[in-house]
């Protein structure tokens, strides 16, 4: 059986594509799926760094495409998970070193070896973007509730629609306190503007900075607040109907802090 080939894209950089790719990938692997993560950001690779696998890179995606090594030689298995592997991007090459057709063939080859192939797309809508979406048959659009990120996401949604790639939305870095005070676009606002199906809502949480520094996906650790959120996203990907957490309602701790701040 062939893997699902899903590209994570956003248009704007820095909205959390790579972090989402890593955590969704790790959560899928934890649920027993065989997962391959592909970094297509040739020249500015980072997926290896976020997973803490940067020291183990021997071959890269361009070398595979150029036939200098076998796919299996270039894949780096995550020690924490035998079913999770990454294919790193080349760091010292250009994005035009490969073509869309080559990329599509490579993703197809990887799809024979896994249940999920997650493709981490570079920022922008240039050649790197076109290559990244070439092999995908589904897309996850990642955005943040900011005007510029939403405008860029809208551009990307238009491009994916032209190719009839089905897509779903992750809204990252929501700050419930700012939404409540009216200083941040709400989930409803973003969904209404972009009008594609929602896959996940991820609050802005400082623990993500810490885990990225250490190269540890937070879904592998204990006691992280975002872990449950990623697990839900993954279950929705698998086809389960999971209701969305209402981030707008303050919890006890939030109410306490709010009261103290107001006082």
């Amino acid at each position: 059986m062939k893997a699902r080939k899903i590209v994570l894209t956003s248009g704007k950089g820095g909205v959390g594509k790579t972090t989402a790719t890593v955590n969704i990938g790790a959560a899928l692997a934890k649920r027993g799926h065989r997962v391959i993560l592909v970094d297509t950001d040739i020249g500015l690779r980072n997926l290896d760094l976020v997973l803490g696998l940067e020291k183990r890179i021997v071959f890269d995606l361009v070398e595979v495409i150029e036939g200098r090594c076998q796919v299996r030689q270039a894949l780096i298995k995550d020690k924490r998970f035998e079913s999770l592997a990454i294919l790193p991007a080349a760091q010292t090459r250009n994005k035009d070193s490969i073509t869309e057709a080559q990329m599509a063939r490579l993703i197809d080859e990887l799809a024979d070896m896994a249940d999920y192939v997650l493709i981490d797309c570079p920022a922008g809508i240039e050649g790197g973007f076109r290559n990244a979406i070439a092999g995908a048959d589904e897309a996850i659009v990642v955005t943040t509730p900011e005007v510029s990120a939403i405008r860029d996401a809208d551009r990307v949604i238009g491009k994916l629609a032209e190719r009839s790639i089905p897509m779903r939305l992750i809204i990252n870095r929501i700050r419930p306190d700012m939404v409540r005070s009216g200083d941040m676009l709400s989930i409803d606002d973003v969904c209404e503007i972009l009008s594609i199906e929602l896959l996940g809502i991820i609050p802005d949480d400082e623990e993500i900075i810490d885990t990225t520094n250490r190269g540890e996906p937070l879904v592998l650790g204990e006691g992280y607040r975002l872990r449950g959120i990623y697990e839900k996203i993954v279950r929705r990907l698998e086809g389960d109907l999971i209701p969305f957490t209402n981030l707008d309602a303050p919890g006890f701790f939030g109410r306490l802090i709010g009261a103290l701040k107001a006082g």
Partner: protein
Amino acid sequence: MTFNDVFNNLNRLFGREKSGETAKERLRLVLMSDHLSLAPDMVEAMKRDLVEVVSRYVEVDRDKIDVRFEHQDSVFAMLANVPIISVNRTPSPPAGPPRRRRRKKRLAQQNGQAPPQSTINPAPAT
């Protein structure tokens, strides 16, 4: 003065500016403009003209008109939600834009004639 400026100024006037709401309105307009490759003030002008045409036949609630552009499958569509207050019984004929009609009317009056099409604006049906 564009719609955005009016919106921002009004908000400032009432001293309660929710920047999330401002963001939403700005995004709506700028995305329409992006999709149509038309400057935002041209999009506004198009909406105005559209409403102008519709209101020649029916009386519309101008404050509640909502025109937006959306991707539907792979097609780009314009969706207009124009609440109708009442239907005119005798609609005005689809003549040219109103400015030209007014000029004709003025010319006719200058010539000492009764203005033609004096029933141009029939009373709205109640």
